[in-house]
């Protein structure tokens, strides 16, 4: 049973435009969400996170939005750059639990 779902295996966006990556979850106990970026043959790197007490968190070109009623979060990248081409993973966790529950990832391709 997949508790965290990234339904788009891949996404292609023009350079300079907005990239929107989506993530849905089923467990209402999740209270913290993270986005990671992964290049081929490298480990994932942490991008941005959001607590369930917020509905938005920004860090430079990256913004994460959380809609708790819909159990949905999204990552917005504005403007998209060629170096943003990577696989993006969404992850979630429950308070006091060390583990992260991961989505399957979305491959983002930025076209020049």
């Amino acid at each position, binding site marked *: 049973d997949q508790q965290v779902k990234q339904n788009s295996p891949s996404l292609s966006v023009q350079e300079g435009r907005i990239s929107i990556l989506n993530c849905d979850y089923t467990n209402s106990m999740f209270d913290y969400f993270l986005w990671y970026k992964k290049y081929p043959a490298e*480990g*994932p790197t942490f991008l941005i*996170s959001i607590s369930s007490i917020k509905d938005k968190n920004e860090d430079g070109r990256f913004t994460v939005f959380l809609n708790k009623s819909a159990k949905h979060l999204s990552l917005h990248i504005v403007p998209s750059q060629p170096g943003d081409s990577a696989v993006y*993973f969404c992850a979630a966790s429950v308070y006091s639990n060390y*583990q992260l529950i991961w989505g*399957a990832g979305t491959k983002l391709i930025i076209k020049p």
Partner: protein
Amino acid sequence: DVKVTQSSRYLVKRTGEKVFLECVQDMDHENMFWYRQDPGLGLRLIYFSYDVKMKEKGDIPEGYSVSREKKERFSLILESASTNQTSMYLCASSSGGRTQYFGPGTRLLVL
């Protein structure tokens, strides 16, 4: 900066061999994790450890064991490698927060 290192970037082993993957972190983190990543399946947790000599099974522990004799070091052992263990293996560590920091990964090919 958190630094997590893994002993090998690429490894080729034969079926039936015993394989050791080592991970070292330099930030005094209590928690350490071993994942495998396969296309379309995301990251799947094999084992994790929240203290020295402590270990907990993750979602897919079969065919694997772990060892944590020192706080900074977490080893993954494939007792008898099989072709279905060909994968990318990722080690991560974390402290009190939920953010995990990853090593560069080991791409293992079992022939």
